[in-house]
């Protein structure tokens, strides 16, 4: 996506060279999110409200449906059975397909500078028609196996590409005392996309956001930074619908590159398989559901540096991207919480996560793109949501990212990633599969400062945005 931004020239002012990557980052961080899919409703014969409070937030039943491999179905099946009555085939007579369309408009408090003309400003009021169109194959594939597979056209990329994918095998055992033990395996391309709660990054608030507003400039690795850039396999158990544990491992699996990954691969390549873990405890009592959990991941990444920075003289050409030697290590440790109150006509929820990343930047320091060896990056988010009759409601979300100051690694004027603010959203659902949302995001600090964060007079509040989105899924 950075390729769409012109390379800085000798005449490009400094603020523009600083702003260009910052403008690209939000798009990376706010990559299209996966959503609720009506093909599940068609497959199970159950209305959206069985699995969702308001899509895409899951209810306990929705979590069990996901843990169970998306396979509960009530459609007529094409079957094949052996003499021993073993099922060889069980195919729904309708393929579990869904379509999703998002149309949006974004107004920034102050337009961002023109990305090519030094004195110009970009147009304010960005209509995205569509912002995103996705096709899903979401449902049962075979008796034990289900899929959530999303292909997305995005107006920012202008192309169709693979989006979130979660292929599952799941099974269930009845233990003594009628306790259930669900277990399974997920193959997916975005750490936490397989998670069952809405407090983790992949399915956390905001479920949809503008791709033309400026987002939070830096994120931890597990916080969406590696979505659709890796592939992983994880195994999980869910005991008594209460205790959840998962262990997995990811490798780089880049799209748009051919053959074995080599020095032509931009964006950072995992040097070794990255382990992922997740534990959670959920308790349900009456209309209340509470989950406390922790998750984490450890990454060893080659820095996204082209050329040979250690050569004499350093060169940026002829060597491609680093794919050997030392790597940077990122250790992400996160805690999360989710509380839901589900009743009629009120539904409310509170989600929170705190992600702390410890960075050991051996390779980046050697390559001359980081100043400090040991950095940290910490993100916290809290979201409160309320809906009346699952029809009208909204959410308030507070977010904060703080981290080490690094003159080379952090490309902001202050060399700090610190950004915080609030997002408020009002939504109206005329039908359960149609959501009209108005979202306002206000920054109290951006890239380390409240005022003049870019050194050219732009304040954090200039990035405040008003975003309208119509979200249809059928």
């Amino acid at each position: 996506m950075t390729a769409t931004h012109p390379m800085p020239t000798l005449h490009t002012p400094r603020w523009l060279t600083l702003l260009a990557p910052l403008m690209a980052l939000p798009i990376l961080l706010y990559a299209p999110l996966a959503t609720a899919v009506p093909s599940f409703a068609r497959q199970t014969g159950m209305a959206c409200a069985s699995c969702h409070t308001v899509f895409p937030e899951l209810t306990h039943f929705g979590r069990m449906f996901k843990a169970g491999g998306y396979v509960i179905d009530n459609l007529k099946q094409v079957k094949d059975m052996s003499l021993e009555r073993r099922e060889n085939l069980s195919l729904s007579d309708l393929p579990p397909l869904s379509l999703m369309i998002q149309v949006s408009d974004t107004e920034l408090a102050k337009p961002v500078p023109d990305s090519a003309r030094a004195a110009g400003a970009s147009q304010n009021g960005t209509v995205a028609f569509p912002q995103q169109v996705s096709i899903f194959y979401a449902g049962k594939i075979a008796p034990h196996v289900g899929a959530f597979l999303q292909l997305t056209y995005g107006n920012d990329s202008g192309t169709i590409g693979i989006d979130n994918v979660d292929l599952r095998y799941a099974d269930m055992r009845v233990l003594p005392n009628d306790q259930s033990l669900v277990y399974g395996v997920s193959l997916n391309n975005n750490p936490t996309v397989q998670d069952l709660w809405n407090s983790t990054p992949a399915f956390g608030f905001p479920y949809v956001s503008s791709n033309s507003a400026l987002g939070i400039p830096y994120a931890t690795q597990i916080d969406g930074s590696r979505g659709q850039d890796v592939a992983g396999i994880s195994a999980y158990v869910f005991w008594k619908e209460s205790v959840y544990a998962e262990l997995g491992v990811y490798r780089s699996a880049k799209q748009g590159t051919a053959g074995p990954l080599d020095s032509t691969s931009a964006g950072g390549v995992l040097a070794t398989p990255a382990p992922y873990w997740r534990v959670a405890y959920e308790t349900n009592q009456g209309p209340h559901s509470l989950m406390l959990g922790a998750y984490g991941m450890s990454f060893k990444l080659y820095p996204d540096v082209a050329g040979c920075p250690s050569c004499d003289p350093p060169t940026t050409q002829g060597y491609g991207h680093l794919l050997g030697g030392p790597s940077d290590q990122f250790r992400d440790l996160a805690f999360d919480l989710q509380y839901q109150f589900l009743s009629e006509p009120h539904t409310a929820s509170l989600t929170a996560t705190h992600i702390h990343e410890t960075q050991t930047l051996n390779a980046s320091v050697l390559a001359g793109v980081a100043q400090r060896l040991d950095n940290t990056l910490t993100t916290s988010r809290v979201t409160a949501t309320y809906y009346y009759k699952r029809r009208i409601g909204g959410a308030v979300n507070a977010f904060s990212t703080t981290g080490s100051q690094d003159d080379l690694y952090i490309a902001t004027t202050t060399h700090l990633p610190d950004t915080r603010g609030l997002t408020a959203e009002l939504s109206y659902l005329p039908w359960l599969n149609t959501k009209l949302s108005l979202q306002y995001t206000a920054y109290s600090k951006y890239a380390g400062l409240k005022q003049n964060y870019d050194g050219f007079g732009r304040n954090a509040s200039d990035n405040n945005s008003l975003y309208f989105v119509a979200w249809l899924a059928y």
Partner: protein
Amino acid sequence: MTCYLKLPINARRRSSTPQWRVSALLLATGLLLPATHAWSDAAPNATPNATPNAAQQLAVGVCATCHGARGISNLPKIPVLAGQGEAYLTAQLHAFKTQTRGDADAIGYMWGMAADLTDEQILNLSHYYSTAAAPTPATVSTRQAVTAQITLGAHIYTQGIADRGVPACSACHGPDAHGLGDFPRLASQHAAYITKQLLSFQNTTRDVAVMHAVTTTLKNAEMTAVATYLQALP
């Protein structure tokens, strides 16, 4: 699907992570994949042998998410099934399957869940829940408002409201509210669920002629009172 776990030759040479770690993870994954009863075996339409064991698998694997492991739901709007009459359960599952029971949650949840149940599965599930022990009612609040509700509820349940033509519920549901034949057990049922059903009988979204006649003149507060009384009954 496993190709991305195969390390490229050059990465293998350079990798600082011992390969046994990856192998151990894959092995652990493999150990979690015994080819036993499928989740889908527990799903309604995929049960070639609807035995009592399969009913338990279905009840624990699918129904339990809402109705609780032994039919004791802890969600107020989802009914307790444990100890419910077998004939009543069978009739309701058929009503969901044939889409003749039309209250809101029946449409939203149960029409889908019951659509592909076989007659044999319905019988086995009904037996499973009817033989499960009914819950012990929660301790009743001693607040005056609740006590008054229970007194009113008990009066309506046992004697009806004569001047408005509301018969005593106990005439059909039994003096202990444990149900009789096709008439369901109401004792220790969630009050919120009972109230919701009384309302749906009244507005005929759940179209049962007898219950519509009984509930026509009932006021909301009276429904809540009966429901509160029944929830507290053992």
